[in-house]
């Protein structure tokens, strides 16, 4: 199987009504590991992930996968910052990506039930997805993203609404997925989480990559004063 990775961003810039939201960004995403995007609110983490995933067209520069776009998209999954639930049952939500790929109804159902058990959603299977609690919804979104075993998973603050135990459990799922070959790109505000699971860190500020590098080195001693301030929890200008 040819891989969709590496992903290369060259001078990629995102604009909205004249305003530059992100970029220019130059970045290469290698075939394995966990990359975590951090940065203050509004620094462009979500926009960067969306741009990589192809949800937002770049105004300048290029976002290149190693496969044609449609094929590459087929191997990715995305967990949104505000989870989007189809107006269907939890079961139907989980089965949906498989059904899109032509899996039979019974096959999709079996897989959905299996993953629901792993993500502790079995009790909610028949419930309407929009009525889930915040944490349940986020678990649903993650489970639905992982059900297709994507080569690349983008996750935008996937644990923001989760309690401590659920967070650690989800982190376990994420690192397990990463270990079994899923490339993980994640945005988070939880520096503890970032430390726990990141291999590589991208620190964003005002829409640009201000600093990036291996996680161990970054957390041990960031090389820019802004990153240091951010890690201390200070306001970054």
């Amino acid at each position, binding site marked *: 199987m040819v891989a969709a990775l590496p992903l290369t961003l060259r001078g990629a810039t995102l604009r909205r009504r004249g305003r530059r939201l992100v970029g220019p960004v130059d970045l290469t995403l290698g075939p394995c590991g966990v990359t975590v995007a951090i940065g203050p609110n509004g620094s462009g983490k979500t926009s960067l992930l969306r741009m990589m995933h192809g949800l937002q067209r770049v105004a300048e520069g290029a976002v290149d996968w190693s496969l044609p776009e449609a094929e590459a*998209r087929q191997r990715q999954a995305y967990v949104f910052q505000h989870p*989007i639930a189809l107006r269907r049952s939890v079961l139907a939500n989980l089965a949906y990506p498989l059904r*899109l790929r032509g899996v039979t109804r019974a096959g999709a159902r079996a897989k959905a039930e299996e993953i629901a058990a792993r993500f502790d959603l079995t009790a909610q299977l028949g419930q309407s997805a929009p009525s889930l609690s915040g944490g349940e919804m986020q678990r649903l979104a993650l489970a639905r993203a992982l059900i297709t075993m994507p080569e690349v998973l983008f996750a935008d603050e996937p644990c923001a609404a989760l309690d401590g135990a659920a967070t650690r459990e989800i982190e376990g799922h994420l690192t397990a997925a990463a270990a079994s070959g899923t490339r993980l790109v994640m945005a988070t505000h939880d520096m503890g989480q970032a430390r726990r699971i990141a291999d590589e860190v991208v620190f964003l500020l005002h829409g640009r990559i201000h600093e990036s590098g291996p996680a161990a080195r970054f957390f041990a001693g960031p090389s820019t004063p802004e990153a240091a301030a951010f890690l201390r929890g200070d306001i970054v200008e």
Partner: protein
Amino acid sequence: MGDLLAGLGEALRLIVTLDAELIEITLRSLRVTLTALVIACVIGLPLGGWLAVRRFRLRRAVIATLNALIGLPPVVVGLVVYLLLSRSGPFGVLNLLFTPTAMIIAQVVIITPLVASIAHQAMRDLWSEYHDLLISMNATRGQRILTLLVDGRRALLTAALAGFGRAIGEVGAIMIVGGNIDGATRVLTTAIALETGRGQFALAVGLGLILIGLALVVSWASHWVLRTERQGTW
């Protein structure tokens, strides 16, 4: 006022006596309208969905045009269909003029823009909710439209009912292409127009009440079947 009350009486009389002709033209009305509605929905609902999910340069113009076509004057539609189907017209060989099929064709032309416009409007909101997810999941265009149609089915009910209402009450076009022929193409609305022209106002009002009753039954039944307005969001 007397005529209105007399019309009520007339409607009751026709119904309790199970007037054979009434039953015939009522069934024909239903058959013509429902067939036209099914065809209009098969065209209009996916078209509405397609316009919701697809971005292209002339999209706004197409939507505005579709909205405008709601205003297609029935008499003109009838006339054009008549000219096309008449023996000297391009489809004359099909011999469809003055048959229920011709009436169905005219009604499809009249209600499809209405059905598609309302459907588009209903699915646009749902699409802005689902947009990111379905794009991210790499759903094909057909799958996107299908998902919108399925999850927005209750909103689409308004589209279908509006189309049904427009078609069942329509008279201008089907009068021209159907000819209001007794026993062949007479339906409720053309019968009403006939009785009005004859000055039989009570009978006309009576038939009108029956037609409205029919529309009410259809609407209530479909709301009940789709169990609308029950659960909060879906």
